[in-house]
């Protein structure tokens, strides 16, 4: 790697065209070119400006769970096609393409494990799978994670990332909101903790169900969190949206999330909260 620059001065965008994409990444927050390896060591958070790059479900499991403690559940659940839906492509084709791309059967990775020794049930949504949209399998896997928490009397943690309901499953996807919220009602009655971690982006039916129902709602910095998409709102009210609208900081200011937590502190924060709730 003789071409490697020795000085610490960050690379600028114009240098980038010569650089292989898997070694360097440009930060969307400050525009700096970052070394991928260093970025990964820093949990995909820009060391200069703190911008949180999107990470996938496996990465959240790795950063939240004690090493080697996680056991996946319900990996075999695969969505049906209840409406025989077809837009420009059949829904089944979209599902197979997403399966291939992401290496999972739907937009949730769930299981049980420990956080600093404390047993928990965990469900992590994955935005890469049809925009993290919630259909039958997403609803069912989150509900099952909740039921395992109930059964084992452990806390539930859900990491959210979603564009909303999965249109291709029509009203059945809408009803998943009631399903996940219903399991949370039982968890609430049982006095078990539920921590909702809201990442970029979380909108639509997922925000309007389990994402906003945490005993504690934690948001990642600058995450887009909302009910309606910004474009829908702009078209409805015919005016430009204020700076920072629907970002994590906006929700904190308006009292809808309890705390914004840097990803690098996430595990410690979850652990401290759970110990307050369960010791």
């Amino acid at each position, binding site marked *: 790697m003789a071409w490697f620059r020795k000085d610490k001065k960050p690379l600028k965008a114009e240098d980038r065209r010569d650089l292989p994409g898997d070694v360097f990444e440009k930060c969307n927050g400050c525009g700096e070119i970052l070394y991928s390896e260093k970025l990964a060591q820093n949990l995909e958070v820009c060391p200069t400006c703190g911008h949180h790059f999107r990470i996938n479900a496996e990465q959240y499991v790795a950063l939240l769970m004690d090493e080697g403690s996680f056991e996946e559940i319900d990996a*075999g659940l695969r969505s049906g096609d209840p409406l025989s839906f077809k837009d420009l492509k059949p829904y089944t084709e979209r599902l197979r393409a997403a399966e291939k791309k992401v290496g999972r059967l739907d937009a949730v990775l769930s299981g049980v494990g420990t956080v600093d020794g404390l047993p928990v049930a965990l469900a992590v949504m994955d935005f890469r799978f049809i925009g993290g949209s919630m259909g039958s399998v997403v609803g069912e896997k989150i509900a099952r994670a909740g039921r395992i928490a109930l059964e084992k009397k452990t806390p539930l943690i859900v990491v959210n990332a979603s564009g909303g309901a999965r249109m291709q499953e029509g009203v059945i996807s809408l009803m998943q909101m009631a399903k996940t919220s219903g399991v949370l009602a039982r968890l609430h009655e049982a006095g078990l903790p539920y921590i909702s971690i809201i990442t970029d982006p979380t909108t639509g*039916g997922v925000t309007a169900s389990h994402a906003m129902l945490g005993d504690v709602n934690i948001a990642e910095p600058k995450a887009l969190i909302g009910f309606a998409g910004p474009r829908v709102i702009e078209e409805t009210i015919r005016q430009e949206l204020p700076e920072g609208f629907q970002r994590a900081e906006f929700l904190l200011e308006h009292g809808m999330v309890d705390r914004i937590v840097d990803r690098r502190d996430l595990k410690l924060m979850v652990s401290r909260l759970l110990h307050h709730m369960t010791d």
Partner: protein
Amino acid sequence: MAASPRLEFEKDILEIQGQIQKLVEMAEESGFDVTEQLEDLRTKLETLKEDTYKNLTPIEQVQVARHPRRPYTLDHIERVFTDWIELHGDRAFRDDEAIVAGWARLDGQSVMVVGHQKGRDIKENLRRNFGMAHPEGYRKALRFMRQAEKFGRPVITFIDTPGAYPGIGSEERGISEAIAFNLREMTHLRVPLISVVIGEGGSGGALGIGVTDRILMLEHSIYSVISPEGCAAILWRSAEHREKAATALRLTSKDLLSLGIADEIIQEPPGGAHSDWDGTASSIQEALVRHLKELCKLSTGKLLKARWNKYDAIGEWSDTEAEGS
């Protein structure tokens, strides 16, 4: 007869109605006996109405569900219940008039009624926001549902909204949280809950008062995760494909029944609810009384268990790991 904005498939119906009116006026002026011709025309009209409304396409169903002469929540309340006492406000921010709530009697029995309320004209829609509620509307709805729970009374909700309002204030005051909280609380409210979809069941804004033991749908009402226009704009990249989207989304009452979401379709009079408000209301009343009688027989434990089971079972999936083993 009230002037009705024309829907394409209603053209022939309106024309015969016009002929009948003319004939009646002519007979009054001239004194001729037109009983027979009138009888013929009226029979023709009824047949035509029945045929037309039995064979609506999904996008036509959407148009009927949004018909500006269709009876809205308060129109039904007036006819289905007695002793209606409207109550207002969320005790936190304001009274959202896109949702109405209050006590009423169904066949003598005290119930809490909550429903989306559209406006009949522009002035009323300024107040009612076209039936699109803000967070405070959902919080108002829950406040009165909890009041019903406190006094052990059933809750009846009427669903008729294009959706929760997508605006700045809505997001600032937590529309997501308001809906989510209603969903959670409705799943374990300790009294019988029945929802009736009377027009548009628009997505999360509908579900926010719609997690109930029974879901009844008027024949020409719709229930959907997204509007056909919105769906077409995203999946077909143009709202012009709303007809295809309306079909693909399976949003008619028949679809919802066959998908196992709706429990019953309440038949509308020939010509749709907008042609006969009283007839529609009496069918709603009959269905509500019957379902409520069944639900009131259940113990609270059984009622809640059945509600959980209902929502837990919704969805279609297979377990690929279980199959081989």
